[in-house]
C-alpha cells in the first residue's frame, strides 16, 4: 500500500523510556477515570495563557484541578478567540498527557534507531559539530526552520543570527509566501484584512473561515451574513463555509488569476472603478488597463469553467458595492503557495480591491498595524550582529524576505553548501515540500537537530531530537498582535512540568548557544525578556499574566490613506520593484495571466490533486492527538473527495477504497463521493498520511499530500506550488 511508510519503520532500540514511548497513544481509561472527578463541583485554578494548536495562538483560560488540566475556555479579551475556542484548541491540550510525547533527548544510531542521551552530551556533541561547520563552511552553511510561535520568532532567529547566519525560515513557502510577497509588491505590506462586518459583498477565493479556522473570523462572518453581507465563495470545493455563501463558483483550480483579471477587465471596461482613488493613490493604471483588454469574461470562462455571464455579474455587483465590496485577503487558500501563478493572483486580488477603492474604507480592505517591543537594554539583551543575506533571496528575489523560503534548505543541502539545520516546532520534512526530497537532502548534511514535543517524521531524519515540554508547561515571550485594536497576548505556564527531562525552548536555545560558543547573547530568562519587552510598550507583566491579553495603542481609524510601503509610495498596478529586479524567470511588472505549471488531461484520467485544511487539525502536528483523531476516524475525514459524476464514471461509490497515484507516490484511501467538488480535481485534507510509528494516532491514516507534489519552487517567489500535481484514480477491487 504505502511503501514509504513501511520502509521508515526503523526506529528505537534500547532504553526503557523509549519503550514507554512506543507503548501507545491511547490515553488510558484509568487516566480518564482519575480525571472524571473533575466533572463536578469547584476547586480549580485558572491560568490565562495562549493556545498552541495553530498559528493563531488564541487566548485561552486553562482550568486546572489538582495540577491536571481539566478544560480550556477561549479568553474573552483575545481578538482571535473572543471567548470561544475551536476543536483543535480544546483537543490539542491533550498533547500534554500524550503517551507519544518525547520525554528525553535522543541521538540517532547508525541503523536509524534512537538511543537516549543526556542533555549535556547532546549539547556538547551538537556544539562541536556546529563549531566544525562554522570553521569549515562558515555560518552560511547553517539554517533554522520553524513553525513560528512567540518563543521561536525570538529565540530561533536570535540563535541562528548569533551563530552568524541569517538563514531563518518558516513554513510559509507552503502556506502564504506567494500571497504575502504579491501583496508587498502591490501595496507594500504582507497582508490586509477584509472588513467583513461592514461589507456589502465579500468574495472569498479559496479561503474558508470554517476550515482554516480562527474563531473570531468565522464569528464575524456569521454575524455579517445575518446582517445582510453577501458572500461569494470561489473554490473548487464547496468548503465548510458554504453555509454562509449565497453563491458558490466552483472554479477550475489554478485559474483564480484569470477570474480576477476578468473581473478587473469588466470593472475597467464598464468604468465601475473608483477613478478618484486610482488617480490619486496608484501608479501604472493605464498600462494595466491596456493589458486588461485581453482578459474578457469570455476568455476567462474557458479557463475557469465559470460562465462569462456569472463573471460579468459578479464584477458588476462588486462595482456596485464600491468600497463596501471586497476580495477577501486569503491566507493559504488558493494563492498562498499553490500554483505557478499564485504571486500574480495575490497581486490581482490587491489590484481589484484598488479598483474598488476600498483601501482602509469601512467594509473594504484594511491595512492595520501591529505593535512591537521597543529596543531593549543593550547590556542585558545585546543586539546580535547582522549576518550575510539569507540564502534564497538571490534566487527568489520577489519573496517576502521575513520568513524566507525554507525550500532553499532542501536545494542548498542537496547542492552540498548547507551543512547543518535546526528544526523547531516544525515537521518540514513531511509537510513543507516533497518528503523524499527532504529526506535525500537531509541525508547529505552533517548536522540535523530537531526540537519538538513529539517524534515527528522530521525528527526521524535528524541526528539529535531534543524534547521540549508542551505549551501548557511553559511560559513564552509576549505575542504582539495587530488588527483593528493592537494588543499583546501572553503565554504562561498552566501545568507543572510533566516529564522531568523535557525543557522549555528558551532554555534549550540558551544552553545550545552556550555549547556553540555564543551563550553571551542569552544571559537572561524568558520572564526577564518578557518583562523588558512589555515594559518597553508600557504594559505590566502582572496585568498581562492576570488577563492574558492587554490592548496597546489606539484603535484603527477608517478612511486614513494607507501608508503604501512600495518604492513609489503608491499602490502599484505595475511593480517598480519587479521592474528593477534583474534575472526574473517568470513574473513581469504588469499583472498578467500566467499558465499554471500543469493541467489535468481528462482524456488520460488525470485530476489535479488539491488539498486543504480541516478545522480539527493543524498541518500534521495535531494528528497525534487522540481527541482529534477519533473525530477523523468516526467521520472518516481522511477520505479523498471526488466529484460524484466522475466517481460514477469510474465506478466508485462513497466509502470505496481508491488508489490515488502519480509518478511519485501511490496511496490507498477511502473515497468521499460528493457533489461539492469540481470534477477536474481530487481534494484531500493535508494533515494525514502520518508515517512516524511513534505517533500512534495518525500513523497510516489517510494519504500524505506532499508525497504527490514534485519538489519544485515557484520562480522568482519561492513557494512550494503545492497544487501543481496530477494524479489518476481507480477503484481498488476487493
Amino acid at each position, binding site marked *: 500500500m504505502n511503501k514509504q511508510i513501511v520502509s521508515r519503520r526503523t526506529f528505537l532500540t534500547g532504553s526503557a523510556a523509549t519503550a514507554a514511548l512506543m507503548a501507545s497513544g491511547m490515553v488510558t481509561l484509568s487516566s480518564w477515570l482519575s480525571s472524571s472527578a473533575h*466533572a463536578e463541583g*469547584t476547586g480549580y485554578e485558572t491560568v490565562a495563557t495562549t493556545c498552541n494548536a495553530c498559528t493563531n495562538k488564541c487566548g485561552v483560560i486553562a482550568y486546572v484541578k489538582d495540577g491536571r488540566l481539566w478544560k480550556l475556555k477561549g479568553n474573552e479579551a483575545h481578538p482571535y478567540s473572543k471567548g470561544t475556542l*475551536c476543536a483543535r484548541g*480544546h483537543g490539542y491540550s491533550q498533547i500534554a498527557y500524550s503517551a507519544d510525547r518525547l520525554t528525553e533527548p535522543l541521538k540517532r544510531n547508525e541503523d536509524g534507531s534512537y538511543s537516549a542521551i543526556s542533555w549535556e552530551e547532546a549539547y556538547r556533541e551538537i556544539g562541536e559539530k556546529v563549531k566544525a561547520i562554522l570553521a569549515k563552511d562558515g555560518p552560511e552553511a547553517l539554517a533554522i526552520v520553524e513553525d513560528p510561535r512567540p518563543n521561536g520568532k525570538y529565540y530561533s532567529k536570535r540563535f541562528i543570527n548569533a551563530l552568524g547566519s541569517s538563514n531563518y525560515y518558516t513554513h510559509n513557502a507552503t502556506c502564504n509566501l506567494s500571497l504575502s510577497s504579491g501583496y508587498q509588491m502591490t501595496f507594500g505590506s504582507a497582508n490586509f484584512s477584509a472588513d467583513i462586518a461592514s461589507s456589502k459583498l465579500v468574495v472569498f477565493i479559496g479561503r474558508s473561515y470554517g476550515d482554516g479556522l480562527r474563531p473570531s473570523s468565522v464569528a464575524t462572518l456569521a454575524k455579517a451574513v445575518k446582517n445582510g453581507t453577501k458572500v461569494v465563495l470561489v473554490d473548487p470545493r464547496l468548503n465548510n*463555509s458554504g453555509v454562509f455563501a449565497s453563491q458558490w463558483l466552483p472554479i477550475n483550480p489554478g485559474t483564480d488569476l484569470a477570474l480576477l483579471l476578468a473581473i478587473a477587465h469588466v470593472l475597467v471596461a464598464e468604468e465601475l472603478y473608483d477613478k478618484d482613488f486610482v488617480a490619486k493613490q496608484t501608479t501604472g493604471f493605464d498600462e494595466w488597463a491596456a493589458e486588461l483588454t485581453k482578459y474578457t469574461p469570455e476568455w476567462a470562462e474557458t479557463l475557469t469553467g465559470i460562465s462569462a455571464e456569472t463573471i460579468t455579474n459578479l464584477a458588476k455587483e462588486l462595482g456596485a458595492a464600491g468600497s463596501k465590496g471586497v476580495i477577501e485577503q486569503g491566507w493559504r487558500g488558493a494563492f498562498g503557495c499553490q500554483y505557478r501563478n499564485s504571486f500574480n493572483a495575490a497581486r490581482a486580488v490587491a489590484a481589484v480591491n484598488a479598483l474598488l477603492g476600498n483601501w482602509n474604507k469601512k467594509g473594504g480592505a484594511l491595512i492595520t498595524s501591529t505593535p512591537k517591543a521597543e529596543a531593549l537594554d543593550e547590556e542585558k539583551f545585546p543586539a546580535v550582529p547582522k549576518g550575510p543575506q539569507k540564502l534564497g533571496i538571490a534566487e527568489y528575489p520577489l519573496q517576502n524576505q521575513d520568513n524566507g523560503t525554507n525550500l532553499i534548505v532542501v536545494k542548498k543541502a542537496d547542492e552540498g553548501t548547507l551543512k547543518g539545520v535546526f528544526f523547531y516546532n516544525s515537521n518540514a520534512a513531511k509537510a513543507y515540500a516533497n518528503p523524499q526530497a527532504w529526506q535525500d537532502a537531509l541525508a547529505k548534511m552533517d548536522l540535523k537537530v530537531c526540537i519538538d514535543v513529539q517524534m515527528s517524521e522530521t525528527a526521524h531524519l535528524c541526528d539529535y531530537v531534543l524534547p521540549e515540554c508542551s505549551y501548557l508547561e511553559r511560559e513564552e515571550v509576549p505575542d504582539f498582535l495587530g488588527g483593528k485594536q493592537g494588543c499583546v497576548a501572553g503565554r504562561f505556564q498552566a501545568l507543572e512540568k510533566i516529564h522531568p527531562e523535557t525543557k522549555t525552548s528558551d532554555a534549550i536555545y540558551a544552553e545550545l548557544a552556550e555549547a556553540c560558543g555564543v551563550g553571551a547573547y542569552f544571559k537572561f530568562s524568558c520572564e526577564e525578556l518578557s518583562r523588558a519587552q512589555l515594559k518597553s510598550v508600557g504594559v505590566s507583566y502582572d496585568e498581562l499574566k492576570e488577563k492574558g491579553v492587554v490592548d496597546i495603542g489606539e484603535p484603527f481609524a477608517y478612511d486614513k490613506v494607507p501608508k503604501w510601503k512600495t518604492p513609489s509610495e503608491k499602490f502599484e498596478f505595475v511593480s517598480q520593484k519587479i521592474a528593477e529586479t534583474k534575472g526574473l524567470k517568470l513574473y513581469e511588472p504588469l499583472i498578467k495571466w500566467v499558465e499554471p505549471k500543469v493541467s489535468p488531461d481528462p482524456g488520460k484520467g488525470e485530476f489535479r490533486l488539491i488539498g486543504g485544511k480541516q*478545522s480539527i487539525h493543524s498541518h500534521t502536528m495535531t494528528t497525534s492527538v487522540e481527541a482529534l483523531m477519533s473525530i477523523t476516524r468516526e*467521520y472518516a475525514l481522511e477520505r479523498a473527495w471526488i466529484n460524484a459524476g466522475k466517481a460514477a464514471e469510474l465506478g466508485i461509490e462513497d466509502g470505496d477504497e481508491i488508489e490515488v497515484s502519480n509518478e511519485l507516490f501511490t496511496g490507498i484511501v477511502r473515497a468521499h463521493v460528493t*457533489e461539492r467538488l469540481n*470534477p477536474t480535481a481530487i481534494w484531500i485534507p493535508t494533515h494525514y498520511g502520518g508515517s512516524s510509528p511513534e505517533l500512534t494516532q495518525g500513523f497510516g491514516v489517510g494519504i500524505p499530500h506532499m508525497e504527490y507534489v514534485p519538489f519544485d519552487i515557484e520562480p522568482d517567489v519561492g513557494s512550494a506550488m503545492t497544487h501543481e500535481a496530477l494524479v489518476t484514480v481507480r477503484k481498488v477491487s476487493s
Partner: protein
Amino acid sequence: MTRYGMLIDTTRCVGCFACRVACQMQNSLPPHDSYIRYEELESGTYPDVYAEQIPLQCQHCEDAPCVSVCPTGASYINKEGIVLVDKERCIGCKYCMTACPYNARIQDHATGEVEKCRFCVWHDDGSVPKPSCVDTCVTNARIFGDLDDPESEISRAIIAHNAKPIAPGLTKAKIYYVR
C-alpha cells in the same frame, strides 16, 4: 417555571467539532466517547449544492422515550425540564439507548452506566448554566435558555427563525433547530 432548551442554528454551523471536544473536556469523557454527534446532509447536484452539518445530542424531550422505557427510574426529567440519568440507579441495560431515536446516549465503558448531555446542569460556578457547547461555539450557532420565559434570547430566536425540533412531532424535543 423554568424549562431549559437549546437552539442550534445549522445555517451558522461549519461543522468544526468544537462543541464535541469542549463537551468531552467539560465532562472528562474519553476521546472516542461524545455526547454530541453530527449528521451531514448534502443536497442538490453539482454545482447547485447545499451542505448542512447537524449537531445532535440529547434533545431533552418532554415525551422522552428513554425515561419511559427505563426500568429502574434512573432516567428522569428534572423540574427544569432537563433529562438526566441518576447513575446510582442505572443498571446499564441500555434499553434507553435503544429507545432514543436520536442515538444520543452512550455507555461509560468503565462503569457500564449510561450517560448523555445534561445541559451542563452542574455548571462550575453554580450560576445559571451555560453549556460548554454553547460557550465554545465559534459562530454562536447555539443559544441556551429558558423556553418558558418569552423574553429570553432563545424564546425570541425560536420565534424569529421559526425554529423547530429536528423531528417535529416525534418526542417533543426541547432542542430547536434553525435550518
